[in-house]
């Protein structure tokens, strides 16, 4: 079927099988391999992208069902080699990634939390950050450095609001 989808700000038209998963389109069809596949059941969270602003698991969305929506993948956050987003920079400073395989999914999932906090002018508590991370599995870090990264990102964002 013919599908039109806005991916990272560009309108894309293509033909897809009705049973195609969004993650298959992103990785295999559009070459956006920053989105990963780590399980077969929707548990690992390495495939998380933003769909009309909300973080979703792209292995649990049909491409057809996403048609007409705006999809943002990790590649859409910053140009290749470009400046990191506030969240990415904070995660870098806290060494919130080791092997990196779960990282793009975490960045996309946590991006929604950090954006929400910025919009509401609040900062999530540590339990809230940890709960928000329950859709992302990581075997390397033990999550602590990731949590510190989110806290740093929210603090930087709050400081930015005050300066502004």
């Amino acid at each position: 079927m013919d599908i039109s989808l806005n991916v990272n700000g560009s309108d894309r038209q293509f033909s897809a099988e009705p049973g195609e998963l969004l993650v298959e389109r992103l990785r295999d069809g559009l070459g956006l391999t920053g989105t990963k596949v780590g399980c077969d059941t929707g548990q690992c969270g390495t495939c998380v992208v933003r769909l009309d602003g909300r973080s979703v698991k792209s292995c649990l969305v049909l491409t057809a069902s996403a048609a007409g929506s705006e999809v943002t993948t990790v590649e859409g956050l910053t140009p290749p080699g470009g400046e990191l987003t506030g969240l990415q920079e904070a995660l870098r400073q806290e060494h919130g990634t080791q092997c990196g395989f779960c990282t793009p999914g975490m960045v996309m999932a946590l991006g929604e939390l950090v954006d929400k906090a910025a919009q509401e002018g609040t900062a999530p508590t540590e339990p809230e950050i940890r709960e928000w991370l329950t859709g992302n599995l990581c075997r390397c870090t033990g999550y602590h450095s990731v949590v510190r990264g989110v806290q740093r990102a929210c603090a930087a964002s709050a400081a930015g609001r005050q300066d502004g």
Partner: protein
Amino acid sequence: MILTELDYVRPAGLDEALALLAGTRGARVLAGGQSLLPDLRSGADTARLLIDVRRLAELRGITRTGTGELRIGAATPLADLAADPEVLARAPELAAAARANGDPQVRNLGTAGGNLLAAGRPTDLPVAAIAAGARVELAGPGGRRTATAEELAAAGAPPGSILTALLVPATGPAAAFEKTADRATRYPVCAAAVRITADGVRVAVTGATARALRLRDVERRLAAGGDHSTEAVLAAFRAEPRSLFVPGPGTSAEYLGHLAGVLTARALARAAASA
């Protein structure tokens, strides 16, 4: 990867969706897809046609009805349900159950209706809907009708029908939801929801049982004793037949019956405290 051949259609309205559902063998309603897609991937579900109702305006939104109920559109994402101020104030067990589901990404796509109908999966919403005394609105070839959440949990949606809304009595805050999550799936090993009303308490459990169930005998025992202490609640559960509780991986019926009692006692304590 979904290996079965299937078609996908996004109807313009509810009537078109109902017509497609009636006229196509192997047709299934797709909303958030957070249960259906894993089943399609594993081959557990072999739907031939997916009718995507996620964007249907008739199925979205949370409103207060003239009769004082909250009407929750079936395609409302769980995340919206969990964060809605009216739901939080008037049906806190429902908000808590919505929030207890899966993880943020599942809640962003997963819908109220899908959660109520996820056959074979011990999702969180049905037990809260039962305790709340909620009804559901079903649209079918013969028109619209309502059923209780309890009836829906027992029998599912009739063939050819589409769940359009959940109708929840907005009675106030004297309600609570408690859950022990399975570490792998995040589904409840056991979840309990209670609501304290003028007529007494309503108690429902899931996970530990074959499906979400209202436990009227437990309610009666609690009413008779007039005692909601942990010991009294545990005793009320011990009097249930053991066969009510279905063993899972690493959990016996005996333990599940006990756990259901503990969670119910905790829910009752919290509901009483917030009343």
